[in-house]
């Protein structure tokens, strides 16, 4: 069995330590919010997950461009890993946000711009994976994936602005008052520290998972090569 590179092993421990510390901060260090109570604590990991979701997309788009320019397969592997991780964390964001919304907004879901854009982003991720799955030739798979990642990432800001403009003109009637009004809160210094630390932790988590995923991809490629050698 191929051993993990030492850097990765260290990163694993660092990530674990940061996650434990972040969880402790969220539950013990951060104060209880005045209006919303304990359920507000989901905010720290919820926003961090959303950040990782977007980070996945951005990393994938950048490495896609590099792959198309250089043709080096390893960039495509990074792209794929970033999209997969981004998809999972976007899903975590949507679900955790939904759980928070039920007591606060009295609805599991609203068609507020950010939620709508998050859904569309998730669908673009899913479409990316389906596109890759539908192509057999590995070279073409990588190229198509890269092209779609670029198209997808450019469309997300446009989608967000178009829906935000849509909703400001036509206020959301269902779900009571404007969703942006209920749920806002000012962050005390302790909350801010917890929040920043959570962001940092999740970024490190993203890097750790991405490294694992790239390593997995490289091992899978090696298996394919060995299979070909045996069958010859």
């Amino acid at each position, binding site marked *: 069995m191929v051993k993990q590179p030492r850097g990765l092993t260290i990163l694993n421990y660092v990530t674990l330590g940061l996650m434990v510390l972040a969880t402790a901060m969220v539950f013990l260090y951060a104060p209880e919010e005045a209006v919303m109570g304990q359920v507000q604590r989901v905010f720290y990991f919820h926003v961090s997950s959303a950040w990782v979701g977007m980070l996945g997309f951005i990393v994938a788009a950048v490495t896609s461009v590099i792959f*198309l320019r250089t043709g080096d397969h390893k960039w495509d592997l990074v792209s794929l890993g970033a999209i997969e991780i981004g998809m999972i964390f976007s899903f975590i964001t949507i679900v955790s946000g939904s759980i928070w919304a039920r007591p606060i907004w009295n609805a599991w879901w609203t068609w507020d711009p950010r939620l709508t854009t998050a859904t569309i982003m998730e669908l673009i991720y899913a479409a990316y994976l389906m*596109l890759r799955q*539908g*192509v057999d030739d590995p070279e073409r798979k990588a190229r*198509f994936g890269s092209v779609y990642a*670029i198209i*997808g990432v450019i469309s997300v800001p*446009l*989608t967000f602005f*178009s829906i935000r403009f849509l909703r400001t003109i036509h206020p959301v009637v269902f779900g009571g008052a404007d969703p942006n009004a209920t749920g806002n809160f000012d962050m005390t210094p302790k909350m801010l520290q917890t929040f920043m630390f959570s962001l940092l932790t999740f970024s490190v988590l993203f890097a750790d998972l991405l490294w694992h995923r790239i390593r997995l991809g490289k091992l899978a490629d090696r298996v394919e090569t060995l299979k070909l050698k045996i069958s010859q």
Partner: protein
Amino acid sequence: MKAPNPLGQELKPQVPVVELDIQPVERVTLSPVSAFFRTMIAVLWKDLAAERRSREMLSAMLVFALLVILIFNFALELDATAQADVTSGVLWVTFAFAGTLGLNRSMAIEKDRGCLDGLLLAPVDRSAIYFGKVLGNLVFIWIVAAIVLPVYSVLYNMNLFNPGLLLVILLGSVGYVAVGTLLSAMSVQTRTRDVLLPILLFPVVIPVLVAAVKASSGYLQGLEFSDIQPWLNLLVVYDVIFTAVAFMVFDYVVEE
């Protein structure tokens, strides 16, 4: 060198030798720009000529569009008051679905008959092929719109001959087709083909649909231009960005 015939006689040439005064023909080299346009028009012309002969794609798109309108009649209670609000939505859903049909067929024809390979072998700029396909798809979608609008007007007693509405259809269709042509070039090369194009296209084309529906309903309701303008701006921005991006990456999608 003439081979002597068995009788040892030299054969005289049968063809009379004539002195011709031929001037060397000047080699006409096309500038890159005009070569680009000629390729684009050639691809467009090929699509239009093929469609004129078979009419299979247009008839499919048209019948489908009319059926969608029919289904909406039952799905949404389109009484007189509700109609004005939902008209633009129904129209754009119709265009989106019929457009998907057209995009799929257009690329599938290229792939199945080996036309795409032939086009790629030609010493032309790949993006000229892309723009030729875009123009072809645009013409087809405009023909569908040209028939759907009067039919809808007649069926629901509305006047849809609004120049603003036509402008929105123009801008919206350009954005839709620009991205759709690129994505259909990809999806036609996958196993899941037709099914994959809507999955790829619809999330990415949402800004066009949102802006087009709002702008269309704005024009139909007779709103002030200042209210409609942001949506038109969004359409233009989308069109410019995505036509540029698609033009840049098309090479990577069709190369072997």
